[in-house]
């Protein structure tokens, strides 16, 4: 089994921990992120996308249950990742499942809005 070649991301109050179990990737986010310099996070997610393609992953779980807050600059990097995914040929696409926390109201509308960009690829669990 190939390994996921991606370290954890820690910056600007945000922690991202990736895990790969041989079939799906789980990305767990914790902290409260006010991102001022989204470039490194954007680059991290693009690397994750490349890894997902390399490994032929069909499902990625993004666990936001422990993420208290993320500002719009940080959130935009997830949008960019989704735009990249949406523009891939169908054979390179994978599903993304967001696990949200109903206690954090910011997640509800922003995730539903995000889902509108790729209704066939994004699911939300709460």
């Amino acid at each position: 089994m190939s390994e996921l070649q991606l370290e954890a991301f820690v910056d600007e109050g945000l922690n991202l921990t990736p895990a790969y179990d041989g079939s799906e990737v789980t990305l767990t986010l914790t902290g409260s992120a006010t991102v001022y310099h989204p470039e490194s996070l954007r680059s991290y997610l693009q690397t994750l996308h490349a890894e997902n393609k390399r490994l032929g992953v069909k499902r990625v779980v993004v666990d936001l249950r422990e993420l208290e807050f993320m500002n719009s600059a940080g959130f935009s990097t997830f949008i960019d990742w989704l735009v990249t995914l949406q523009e891939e040929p169908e054979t390179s696409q994978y599903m993304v499942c967001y696990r949200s926390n109903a206690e954090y109201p910011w997640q509800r509308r922003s995730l539903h809005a995000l889902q509108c960009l790729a209704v066939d690829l994004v699911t939300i669990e709460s």
Partner: protein
Amino acid sequence: MGRVHIPDRLLAEFRTRSLERLARIETNWYSVISTREAEIGVEIEREVHTLKGDARLLGFHDVSMLCHKLEDLLRFSRSRGYIIPDTLDLLVAPLVGLLRLLLHKSSRQPMAGVDLVEFSRQVDNALREAYLAQPETQTSDSNEKVSMTASSPALTEVGRVTGRTLGRLARLATRVYLQGLRSEREADRRELRDVWISLARQVRQMRSVALSQVLSRHGGMVRDLSSRLGKQVVLVTDVGDVTVGPTIVPVVEMVASHAISNAVDHGMEPPDMRVARGKAESGTIHLKAMTRDDEFELSISDDGPGVDFEAVRARAVEQGVLRKEAAKDADDATLLELLMLPDFTTRQRATETSGRGVGLDAVRTSVNRHGGRIQLKSTAGEGTSIVVQLPQERQELAVHSFVAGKQRFAVASSWRIARAWAGKPDQVVDPLECLNLLPDNDADETVHEPVQICLERDGQQVAILATSPASPQVAERLCPTAEEHPVEVVLVEQGEAILIRPDRLAVKSNEPQ
């Protein structure tokens, strides 16, 4: 109604420009949310407004619709001083993402997997909730009028200079000018007038936009296009500190975009061909600008193969533009003129980057409309250049001009000369008295029979005391003050005149100017 065919070239340009615009919108959004600087918000609104208009014009109706939603969101944010709920803030990124997706796709048909209807509903709901949660309160910026015209001073910031700051400087300059008129000593008058000239010049310069800023994105455009076409092209820009007025900016952008995409697409050989012809592997496009008197010149030249004049001759005959004999005798200048005709091209097939000759024709039309000239030059084997001369922006205003005492005045022609005076005596304005310009000793003054000029606008009547009847003129605005300010200095028939706003002058007549 059938869909209007849009040349690939225009579509490609629209996409490139719009994606860059979106990047600026997004960056500025994060900035305005953290700094709450209203000018940045105004800049975003201008960009969105332009994107919406372009999209509608080219049939990208989904893009236009989303821009409309973004405008709603921006309007709310502005009215709340950019202190808004997270749920609204977090809608901007997906909105921009959606716009990006819609712009990327090759067809203008709706895109699979994207739910625009649901997204719009979410924006509407979020806004409705926000309006209910945050009823409108007066913020420091909510009184500021925001006009979505490109020439609005509020939208022409350079660095951090805002329309409000420019307005304040213009008012100060006008005060200096008036103080000069009031001075008894000739030396004081001369000195204050000199100060006014310097201030007015400074304000004009600050209203202008640095050409380097306008053209900054074209380096990326050259890189993208050349890489897509398998060419190596370098853009060398030499524009120094040349500035242009805000209304000229779109013309300059259009000229540069068309000329550069043409140069990369048609005017530059692939690397191996260049080497075989004894040229450097990489082609170079030189973009130069300079100012001369009241106009500026922009030249864009490439070191490609130059125009194939024989192909132009053959095409002119084929298209019936020239007869065979005339084509044979036509000189280079005549043949180059043909390249700026609508639908004339030496190419049999349009490419994705460059369309069917629409570009140069459209560029020439736009340049001419702004009082400029365009010239195409080409030398076989050495390259082609486009030279554009455009007059520097002049802000003109139709006025009624008249004299009171020794001073020339003007009133905007939005005030109509009234046929009959139905106002009250206290609505008669003496501009000399209001502006404290009455001479202390009028013993030497020639006595003129006073003339009452009656004006009306929006149901309001004002009469102005003058010593000459009003005549229609065109005034050049040298240092524009805001509509709320009672006066500004303009140029009428090469002489300075005081533009008065009668309604404001009547209100402010007791205040120091």
